[in-house]
């Protein structure tokens, strides 16, 4: 199996995630796109770790999974707080800091 297959798959998923972050207005859906991006990075780490016969790629992939879990927990709590204060999770409405 070629290494570039996995790298290209990871790039494609990363770009789809970037598109999702830019094209979505619903905060929960933006968080989903961020999950896509984090997952794409994991495949890169594991593929390069396998190429070099090193276990570090696997360990860092595990760390990223843990960080992603923490990020989603806090992120959804913030979305919930925004919803409670403004009855909407439309990110275009969250513009209080705009002059």
């Amino acid at each position, binding site marked *: 199996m070629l290494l*570039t297959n996995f790298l290209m*798959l990871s790039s494609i998923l*990363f770009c789809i995630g970037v598109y*999702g972050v830019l094209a*979505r207005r619903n905060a929960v859906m933006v968080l*989903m796109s961020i999950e896509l991006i984090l997952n794409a990075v994991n495949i890169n780490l594991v593929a390069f770790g*396998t190429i070099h016969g090193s*276990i570090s790629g696997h360990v860092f992939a595990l760390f990223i999974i843990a960080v992603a879990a923490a990020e989603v927990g806090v992120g*959804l709590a913030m979305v919930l707080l925004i919803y409670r204060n403004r009855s909407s999770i439309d990110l*275009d409405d969250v513009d209080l800091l705009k002059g």
Partner: protein
Amino acid sequence: MDTVWGDNVAQNIAFYLIAAIMVGAAIKVVTSKNVVHAALYLVAVLIGMAGQFILLGAEFIAATQLLVYVGAIVVLFLFGIMLTRAQVGSDPDVDTTAAQRTTGGFVAFILLVVMGYAIYGTEGLSETKLPEERVQTIAEVSDSIFSTYLVPFEAISVLLLAALIGAIVLARRD
């Protein structure tokens, strides 16, 4: 034959099949107008990712992926959708304006071109093959976590605790 499929035809077919499902589901995640459908397409992407980890010989990561992502994070997303009272059925307001979407698609496409050029333009990278024997045992992973990466591991533990407390403080109702 060898140049197209590499050494192991079955593994390559599995790779392309899972990759096609993942890319299709990922596109549905970012384009679906129904929030719940997007979350369920995300499950397809995450399970496909676990399959790719198994193809890469990372069995422990694949199991963790299924437990943490499919088991916990997607459920968290569904709770988030439920608690923010998303519209049942398709919701026309989940996307930004057409102009912003076009710009987003343009940015993502340019990024893909740059990364593809970097991957295929790097000398020697496109001929690199994964080793045939590539299964990494759980014992190796745990040895590494509890020796070389002990300090980052403890930091991750504290981070998870902080995120837990932070989420409770943020979401509390008083």
